[in-house]
C-alpha cells in the first residue's frame, strides 16, 4: 500500500470512528477480538445455515414423514424408518444405483486415462501447445444443454456425423447405428459425451500436477541414467498422483449427480437403461410429489457420497504425505 493510499484509509477510518455514536462506540470497545471476529463472520454463517444446513435438516425431518408437497393441507404423519425401508427395498432404485455406478466408473476411468495422457503430451511443450490446450478446453466451456442437444444431432442415424463416421469405418449402414435407441449402446452414448465434455477438466488438473514437478528431479534421474519409462513410473506418476486423485474425486462427485446430460440425450431410456439415481430422485420428488420418500432417498444418496468421499479424501491425504 502506498503512503497516499494508507492516509486515505486512515482518514476514512477516522471519519467512521467520529461518525459512530458514542453509545455504539462504547459497546464495540468492550468487545473482545474473538467477539469482533464472530461479528464479521456472522452474516456468512447465517447464510450458510439458511441455505445449506437448514434444508438438509429439514430434508432429514421430512424423510421420516409421509409429507407430499402437492398436498400441503393433508396431515403430516411420522412414518419412522418406513420411507428408508421402502427406498432400500425398491428394485428400481437399486437398478438406478447400479446404472449410476456404471456411469461413474467408466467416465472416471476414461476421463482419467485420456485426460492424463493429454496433459502429459501438452506438458512436452511442443510448438503450438498453448493453441492445442485452448482447443481441447472448448467442450468444457460449453453449457451441458448445448452439448446435450449438439450430441443428440450427432447421434442421429440419418443425418448425424457420428453414425456416418462409424459407418465409414465399419461398413455398417447408418440406419443400424442407433446410439440412443439401442439398449446396449445408449449408456455408452452418454459416457462418450460426458468423457468428451469433461476430459479437458481432468487434463487441466493433471497438467497442474505435472507442471508442479521440479525439473531438477528429472535432471538428477538423467544423471543416474534412468530411462524415460523409469522416470515416468518413478517420478511423474507418483508426483502427479495427488492431482489425479483430486480430479477423480471431483469428477466422481459430479458424475454421481449426473442429470442434465441424461435427460437431454435419452430421458432415462430406452426403457430404464440410462435412468440414473438423480433422475429417479427427481421423478419421485417433483413428478410423483412423494416428498417424504424422495427425501429419504436423497439422504441415502448424500450419506453414500459423503461417506465414500471421506474415505477417498483420507486415502488422498496419505498419498500426499508420502
Amino acid at each position, binding site marked *: 500500500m502506498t503512503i497516499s493510499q494508507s492516509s486515505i484509509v486512515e482518514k476514512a477510518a477516522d471519519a467512521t470512528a467520529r461518525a459512530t455514536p458514542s453509545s455504539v462506540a462504547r459497546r464495540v470497545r468492550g468487545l473482545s477480538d474473538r467477539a469482533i471476529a464472530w461479528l464479521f463472520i456472522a452474516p456468512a454463517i447465517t447464510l450458510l445455515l439458511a441455505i445449506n444446513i437448514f434444508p438438509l435438516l429439514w430434508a432429514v425431518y421430512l424423510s421420516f414423514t409421509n409429507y407430499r408437497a402437492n398436498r400441503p393441507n393433508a396431515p403430516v404423519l411420522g412414518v419412522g424408518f418406513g420411507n428408508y425401508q421402502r427406498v432400500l427395498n425398491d428394485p428400481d432404485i437399486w437398478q438406478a444405483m447400479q446404472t449410476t455406478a456404471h456411469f461413474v466408473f467408466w467416465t472416471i476411468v476414461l476421463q482419467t486415462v485420456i485426460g492424463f495422457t493429454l496433459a502429459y503430451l501438452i506438458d512436452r511443450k511442443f510448438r503450438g501447445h498453448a493453441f492445442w490446450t485452448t482447443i481441447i478446453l472448448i467442450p468444457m466451456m460449453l453449457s451441458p444443454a448445448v452439448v446435450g442437444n449438439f450430441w443428440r444431432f450427432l447421434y442421429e442415424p440419418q443425418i448425424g456425423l457420428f453414425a456416418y463416421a462409424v459407418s465409414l469405418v465399419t461398413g455398417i449402414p447408418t440406419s443400424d447405428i442407433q446410439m440412443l435407441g439401442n439398449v446396449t449402446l445408449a449408456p455408452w452414448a452418454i459416457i462418450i459425451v460426458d468423457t468428451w465434455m469433461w476430459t479437458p477438466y481432468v487434463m487441466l488438473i493433471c497438467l497442474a500436477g505435472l507442471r508442479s514437478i521440479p525439473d531438477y528431479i528429472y535432471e538428477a534421474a538423467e544423471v543416474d541414467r534412468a530411462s524415460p519409462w523409469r522416470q515416468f513410473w518413478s517420478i511423474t506418476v507418483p508426483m502427479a498422483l495427488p492431482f489425479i486423485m483430486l480430479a477423480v474425486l471431483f469428477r466422481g462427485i459430479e458424475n454421481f449427480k449426473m442429470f442434465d446430460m441424461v435427460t437431454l440425450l435419452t430421458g432415462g431410456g*430406452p426403457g430404464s437403461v440410462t435412468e440414473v439415481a438423480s433422475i429417479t430422485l427427481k421423478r419421485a420428488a417433483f413428478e410423483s410429489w412423494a416428498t417424504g420418500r424422495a427425501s429419504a432417498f436423497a439422504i441415502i444418496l448424500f450419506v453414500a457420497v459423503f461417506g465414500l468421499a471421506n474415505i477417498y479424501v483420507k486415502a488422498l491425504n496419505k498419498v500426499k504425505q508420502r
Partner: protein
Amino acid sequence: MQKTSKALFGLATAFVMSSALPNLAKADELTLCWAAWDPANALVELSKDFTAKTGTQMMFEFVPWTSYADRFLNELNSHGKLCDLIIGDSQWIGGSAENGHYVKLNDFFDKEGIKMDDFVPATVVGYSEWPKNTPNYWALPAMGDVVGWTYRKDWFEKPELQKEFKEKYGHDLAAPKTYDELKQIAEFFQKRQIDGKTVYGASIYTERGSEGITMGVTNVLYDWGFQYENPQKPYDMEGFVNSADAVKGLEFYKSLYDCCTPPGSSNVYMVESADAFKSGQVAMQMNFAFTWPGLYKDEKVGGDRIGFFPNPAEKAHFAQLGGQGISVVSYSDKRDAALQYIKWFAQPDVQAKWWELGGFSCLNSVVNAPGFAKSQPYAQAFLDSMAIVKDFWAEPSYASLLQAMQKRVHNYVVAGNGTAQEALDGLVKDWSDVFKDDGKI
C-alpha cells in the same frame, strides 16, 4: 435542519410512489399461464378483444411443453400468485380440485348462465369435471385436442404407387380406417425411394421422459379393448389393463415401431413427430390435432400435399384425448377479473373467433355449425376424432401412474425387454401400489 427534513420527506414520497405505482398498474392486469405453442399465440391475439372491451391488460406466462408441468405444478403447489388464470393439462384436474388449487366454478356458471351442455360432452368430462362424470366443474373447456394422424396425400395419390399398392394388398391406397390398413401402408412406404429420397412408414410417439409413449400407446390400446378399470368396480384393474386384447394392442404398437418408423425414433413426441413429417421423412404421422394448422400452412408438406384422418379402429374406436380447460387459480388476488375473462371466453362469438385464429373450440355452437366441417381442411378429422376421445387417469396421483406406464411400456416397445403381457402385468402392480398409497384400494 429544514433541508434535511425536506430531503427525507422527498425520499419517503419517492419510496411510496415507487412501490405504489406498479400496484396501481397491476390492478388492471391478469396473468394467464399456459404452454408455449401455436394455440397460445392465437390466444394472445384473441385476448386483445377482451382488453379492448374491459380495459384489463392480459399478461401471458408461456412455458415450453418440456417444463410446462414442472413449472406450473410447482407454482400451484407453492400457492404462488403468478397465475390468475391457468390453462392446465387435463390430467391435473383431480389433483388441482382436491388440493384446492382451482376455484370451483359451479356457482359462477349458474350465475352467469354458462351451461356445460353447450360444450362437447367429452371435453366437459376431460377438462372440467372432478370427480369424473359428476357435475363438479373446475375449468371451462378451452382447447380441444386429440391424437390423430396426418398423411402425405401427394404420395398416396401417385398413380404408380396406387397401382403397386392395390396389386399387393387388394385395396386402394387411401387414408386407413383400420390398424391393419395403417400397418400395410406403413410397411409399403418403409425405406421406399420417393423423389430420390429414402422415406419411412410412420412416426409414432415413443418419448420416455414425460408422457409421450403413453399418449401414443393408449391411442392404440383403447381400440383393442384396453380399459383402465372394471366399469363395475373402481380401481379393479386385473383383466382390464392387462386383458388379452390389451396385450395384443401393445404387441401391435411394438410391431409398428419395429417395422415402420424412421431410424432413431426411440424418443419421439409432438415436436419430433411433426419434424419427421415436415422434413418429408414419413408417409404418416401420429400427432395431436393442434399441430395440424401449422402443418397445413407448411410450405413443403402443407396445402394439397397433406391429408388428415382420425385414429383408425380395431375392435373399438377411440382416440387419446389431449387439450386443456381454463381455470381460475384460487390463490389469485384478482379472482373476479379472472372470472370475467372466463365469462367473456365462453361467449359463442369469441369461441368462433378462437377457432378462426387457430385455437380448437369445444363449444357445440361452433363445432356443430353448418359450415364447420368445411371451414378448415382438418376440421372434419378434428370433429370425428373428438367424438371418440378417451383420457388417461385424472387422479390426483396421475403423475405416478404416468411414470409407471412410461417405464413399463418403453421397456417393452423400445428397449424390447420382456413381453407385452409382462409389461401390462407389471403396470397393474405399479398402479395398484399407487392406489394403495392413496388409500383407494
